[in-house]
């Protein structure tokens, strides 16, 4: 899902960078002392997740994990994903420095959108919470694919074709991410409910 350097035109890169910077600023503003460690851990998890290749048929896909990062961090997903992507660009040559802004937007914006939609559902009954978590992981990748298509639209490829290709190729990832996100939420609900958003000790 990372876009390489030299593919996108200047204006797209610039607007991506501006939007990512705005998101990161909001994220940093909302990130309070108590959540810094959590953001760091999830940033690390996101950084590593791209290395986990899941063999699927003759090819392999890798996890993105923007759904769970967004669900647990909210707006702080922007700085967390930005840092992780910067590290991936420097150490693994995934994506690139000039495309950092666009790539951050591709993965962090769906994360925040998912947070807004699904975080309030996590404290409902287990069935609702798990469905919300699965949909969250699924949708975060789907929206990412749509943003990839949008950003490529302004260069040479056709939006619909690219978006469809990216989404179709990521279908297995979406399903896997949905399952992983649901498992994470189920686990956290049992073991460490304070990590979930909107947690209030009253529930104990």
């Amino acid at each position: 899902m990372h876009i390489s350097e030299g593919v996108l035109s200047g204006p797209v890169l610039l607007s991506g960078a501006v939007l990512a910077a705005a998101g990161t600023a909001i994220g940093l503003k909302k990130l309070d002392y108590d959540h810094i460690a959590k953001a760091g851990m999830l940033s690390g998890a996101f950084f590593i997740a791209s290395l986990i290749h899941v063999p699927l048929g003759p090819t392999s896909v890798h996890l993105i994990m923007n759904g769970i990062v967004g669900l647990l961090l909210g707006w702080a997903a922007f700085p967390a994903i930005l840092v992780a992507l910067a590290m991936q660009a420097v150490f693994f040559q995934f994506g690139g420095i000039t495309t950092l802004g666009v790539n951050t937007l591709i993965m962090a914006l769906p994360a925040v959108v998912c947070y807004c939609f699904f975080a309030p559902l996590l404290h409902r009954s287990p069935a609702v919470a798990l469905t919300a978590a699965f949909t969250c992981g699924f949708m975060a990748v789907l929206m990412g694919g749509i943003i990839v298509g949008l950003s490529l639209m302004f260069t040479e490829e056709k939006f619909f074709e690219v978006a469809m290709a990216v989404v179709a190729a990521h279908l297995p990832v979406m399903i896997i991410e949905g399952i992983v996100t649901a498992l994470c939420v189920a686990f956290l609900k049992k073991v460490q409910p304070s990590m979930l958003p909107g947690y209030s000790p009253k529930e104990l």
Partner: protein
Amino acid sequence: MNVRLLSLLCLVAALMLLTAGAALAHRVNVFAWVEGDTVFVECKYPDGTKVHEGVIRVLDSASKELLSGKTNDKGEFSFKVPKLDDLTVVLEAGMGHRGDWPLSRQDLSPAGEAPGQTSPAASQPAPKTEAPAAKELSPAAASPLPAGIDQAIEKALDKKLAPVMKMLAEMHEQKVRLTDVLGGLGYIFGLVGVAAYFKRKPG
């Protein structure tokens, strides 16, 4: 119930087939080398999957496109050196994947000289047609030998060097190493410390 399960399995299988064509990596590796007057290009994703149907474009030093084509199923592409210049081989594998490999003038110069020697390909058939006549006159003369040896050496070298080139191509692939992973994680935790410092509660 069983029918439903079966159709679900079919759907999953179909999805897998659909997605088989697209390898999802973040980066594509391009490696190009020169053999004679031909440039060979090999394209792979970092996990070793070949890039098929990737678009190759060859640019000159002024970024003008000289030729283009598509890689085959093995992720390979080859073309005759179009021009003695600093070339760039660009691979576009779709969905925002792009890689390039520079070929300097020096890399191409042996190839540039070969056509300069009135091109071995063209000179090769010529002695053959003359050979019967020459044999009748003096079988021991063997005057076209140097040219023949030249070509034989070049061929043998290309053959012997092919595995070396392959090895170089493999070495050029930047695989993810443990040090990279640990280094990245270290930076992230370090940044957490920085953030914690600036957000600390006074007092």
